[in-house]
């Protein structure tokens, strides 16, 4: 239902490094991993070596619920990379995750163009999740 499962497009991939490895490893199993600060308690995205709110290095990875809401959305008719052309329009969103972190991501699925601000979203489940390089969402 989400395209050719056996031959996913060759999407550009994030470059794995010491900071973001848990995010990328978690998503390979369909889990959304976030960092939370041990000092100020805030969860954030994208991965960093220190808390952007208080500079603490006491950071812990945890599995987020995978639920959130759309803050803003766009139907991108002209993706900037050919791997996405067959899926245009890409529904790009700013997502507010339940845990408080903000994320740029996209909504996929046949009904994706129904996306509107404030709508609830949830993670693409496995095994479809494995198709996408980073945590990706569907309308809940």
């Amino acid at each position: 239902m989400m395209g050719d499962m056996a031959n996913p497009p060759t999407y550009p991939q994030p470059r794995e490094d010491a900071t973001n490895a848990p995010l990328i490893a978690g998503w390979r199993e369909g889990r959304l991993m976030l960092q939370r600060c041990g000092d100020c308690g805030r969860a954030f995205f994208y991965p960093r070596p220190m808390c952007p709110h208080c500079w603490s290095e006491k950071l812990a990875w945890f599995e987020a619920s995978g639920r959130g809401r759309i803050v803003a959305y766009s139907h991108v008719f002209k993706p900037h990379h050919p791997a996405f052309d067959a899926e245009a329009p890409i529904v790009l969103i700013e997502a507010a995750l339940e845990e408080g972190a903000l994320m740029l991501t996209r909504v996929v699925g046949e009904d994706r163009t129904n996306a509107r601000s404030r709508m609830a979203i949830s993670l693409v489940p496995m095994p479809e999740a494995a198709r996408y390089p980073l945590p990706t969402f569907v309308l809940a």
Partner: protein
Amino acid sequence: MTKSDIGIVGCGQTPYSKRAQGTLVGYLADAARRALDSAGMARGDIDGLAVAAFQLPPDNAVTLAEQFGITVSYADYFTAGGAGSVAMMLAAKRAIEDGQAKAVLCVAGDLYDVGAHYRLMGNFNQALSNYAQPHGFGGPNGLFALVTRKHMEAYGTTCEQFGRISVGQRASAALNDNALLRGPMTMDDYLNARMIADPLRLFDCVLPCTGAEAVVVAAVDRAPKGKGVRVLSGAEQHNHPPGEVAPLHIGAALYRDRLWARAGYGPKDMQFAQIYDDYPVMVAIQLEDLGYFGAGEAPGFLARHDFAWNGSLPLNTGGGQLSCGQTGAGGGMIGLWEAVTQLRHEAGARQVPKVERGLVAGYGMVGYGHGLGSASVVLERA
């Protein structure tokens, strides 16, 4: 307040091209030569060099000095994207005030076209490359579509109101031979253009192009008679507000009061506004944060004003990036170039009558979701 004697004594702009052709150093040299001519200076008068160009690395200001064959006591390679040129000019002014140099050549430009723009934006910085590129984010069009959507939903701004910026500037571009898009454009043309990244249509998005700009910063009395431009005040603020993906504010909100207080003027005293215009929504956000109207009042302000060079608010009086094209990092200097040209009364058919002072605002350096940099100056004919 005491007025600084250091200002802008010359400016130059190369022809713009839709195709990336020639070489970057060639374009920067062409802009530099034109700026020196305009300043009535020779190469040997320059003892400082600052440069803004995304495609310059692995080269930098010092290796550019080697290319140019000049020795300099001040060299600076920019940061802050579209805010970089204004920030660079302010840094050059401080270097001269500190005695580090006497005349600094500031150049900006890129060998840009649509393909080069997409290649650059996919790897613009670590956060975009790692966490936006894998989603097919559509480059800046996708990101600024989110900001535009948020502006419309928060304030009730309409596409037609944003369109008044693009349409008004196009009227000025008709009088600028260097504008790549200078044919007439009506509101219907704007609204019926193809959708790029909803709600952004074709004429909301800048055309990446090739070209370069330059200004010479020095004591204003070194300019040819009647051609000096004073810097009444300047400020910059980057990554404000921190931690947001698509905010409706920029750093100018923090420095606005200081900028105007030091200038001794307010927005109403400005006879033009050259405001970084990669997308109309960012013009609206900068105008708000620079104090042209109150919080959330963009819809009424945009509806009420005519933004052509001879309108009620002369905005990006050469057509801006939306009509001229965006020469990569040179997009941050086109407003400065146009402002100096206007203040020298050299703008020809689009000359704002009797212009004495105006505002230039730079904005840019797209990070994880939006442009992070903001830098502004208030300029006055010396």
